[in-house]
């Protein structure tokens, strides 16, 4: 602990999960997340855990359902097409209140797409993904350091509220190397308290069941409403975001993950020219930092959302700011990565346009 390491994002994510107490990993290879199962294949046995290269993504997520039902910290990971395959199982885990942890090191889509980094899985991540009425706690790291830190936070939130939690990264964050330090105390899974719903060898206690179905009339609604209470608590307590130089800003860039890194480059260019540009980076994508954005909307002329998709998070930004100021979009998609220079060009145009009317109300 405390040593500065130069690590790939995918390796940092894996090591972060192990240090957070994960002792069961099941996965299936896909670029650009292949380093995760590769790392886990030696690290899990070393830590006394289990690694399984499953026969498919569907098998892996269902193995997680079983392993997580014993109350242990578990993980699976994949990239976009593989995450689509896992959605049925994720929905089952959500329905069974299982705090699984998974990561999507997203790539260009739809379909098989390509293997470059992309953010086209935003809707899938924050709007459910699988069938049914559920939410997933979604964290978007912006650095290798955060790739290493976020698994622990995901486990803690997932277990507190009994919801699935995920890290939504992309190919750039997975493949890049940066220095990082693991500063949090390593979790000894033996010392974690066994949850009161966990399955295992019966010791004369009351019978327990982990399941996502309830056929008796009205029962499923009661279960769902109980879960909705927890969703509400998450929205009230677990929002995370970062702001940079927003206090005096006329224009605020809104971006997460790799896009936010490009925005930081653009912001630097803008500030060097004396332009008052801020940067707002959502860290939790669900719950989305709605209140903070609405508050900011009262002080700025406009927002420029930067995404590696056709524009998905922009919907949440618009909902958050309630059409009070114009929300513009800079979009690269299908594996293309925005550059600081391109964003800088567009933000100059947006600044020139000034406050004006809301674009969608025009």
């Amino acid at each position, binding site marked *: 602990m405390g040593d500065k390491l130069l690590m790939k994002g995918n390796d940092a994510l894996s090591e972060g999960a192990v240090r957070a107490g994960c002792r069961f990993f099941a996965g299936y290879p896909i670029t650009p997340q292949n380093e995760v199962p590769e790392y886990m294949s030696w690290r899990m046995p070393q830590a006394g855990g289990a690694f399984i290269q499953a026969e498919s993504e569907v098998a892996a997520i269902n193995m997680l359902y079983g392993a997580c039902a014993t109350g242990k910290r578990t993980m699976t990971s994949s990239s976009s097409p593989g995450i689509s395959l896992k959605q049925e199982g994720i929905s089952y885990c959500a329905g069974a209140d299982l705090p699984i942890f998974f990561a999507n090191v997203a790539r260009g889509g739809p379909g098989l797409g390509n293997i470059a980094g992309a953010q086209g899985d935003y809707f899938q991540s924050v709007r459910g993904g699988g069938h049914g009425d559920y939410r997933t706690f979604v964290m978007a790291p912006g650095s290798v350091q955060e790739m290493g830190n976020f698994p622990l936070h995901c486990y803690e939130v997932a277990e507190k509220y009994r919801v699935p939690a995920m890290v939504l990264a992309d190919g750039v964050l997975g493949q*890049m190397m*940066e*220095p990082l330090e693991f500063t949090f105390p390593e979790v000894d899974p033996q010392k974690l308290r066994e949850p009161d719903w966990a399955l295992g060898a019966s010791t004369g206690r009351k019978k327990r069941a982990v399941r996502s179905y309830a056929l008796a009339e009205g029962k499923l609604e009661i279960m769902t409403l109980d879960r909705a209470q927890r969703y509400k608590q998450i929205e009230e307590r677990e929002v995370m975001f970062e702001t940079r130089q927003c206090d005096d800003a006329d224009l605020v860039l809104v971006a997460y993950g790799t896009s936010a890194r490009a925005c930081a*480059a653009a912001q630097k260019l803008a500030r060097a020219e004396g332009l008052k540009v801020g940067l707002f980076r959502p860290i939790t994508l669900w719950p989305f930092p709605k209140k903070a954005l609405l508050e900011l909307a009262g002080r700025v002329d406009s927002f420029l959302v930067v995404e590696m998709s056709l524009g998905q998070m922009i919907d949440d930004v618009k909902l958050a700011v309630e059409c009070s100021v114009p929300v513009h979009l800079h979009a690269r998609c299908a594996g293309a*990565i925005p550059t*600081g220079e391109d964003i800088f060009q567009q933000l100059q145009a947006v600044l020139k346009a000034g406050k004006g009317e809301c674009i969608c109300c025009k």
Partner: protein
Amino acid sequence: MYQGIRISGFGGQGIISSGILLAYAGMLDGKNVSFFPAYGAEMRGGTANCSVVVSSEEVTTPVVSQPDTVIIMNEPSLAKFEPLLKPGGLMIINSSLVNSRPKRSDIKVVLIPCNEVAAELKAPRIANMAALGCFCRHTGALSVEAVAKAMPKVFKRAKPEMLALNVAALRKGAEFN
């Protein structure tokens, strides 16, 4: 101080390991660094390349779109990276394998026969180290010593005599003007 670097060549020329080595050396030197490889199908036979940032300030984007320095290890890389280089930027060309010359006149060009340097040391695989030595000399972003210090950390399984040859190639490379 900020250095955005692109290194480009054939898969197998040590493009990726050169990038990791520079990033590691920068980290040991107390700088902020990032490394980002172009990964995937293009590595097989085609052009492999990577982005490295070494900076005294925070590293923003790890994808270097307007490099301060490009290291061109094979012919196809020249056409690909000449247009991206910043005006006034540095282009290091492996003249052993690259016959063409850049058309731009607003950049600094250093020619170095990396493969010959490596062949003289009877270690043809370390042509990349000659290029890195040349990079150290002409940018001042990192010292040859810093890169040499990072070597055993990055090439963990390399024998001491191989590491010594790598350092020798670095030093040779740093002699080219």
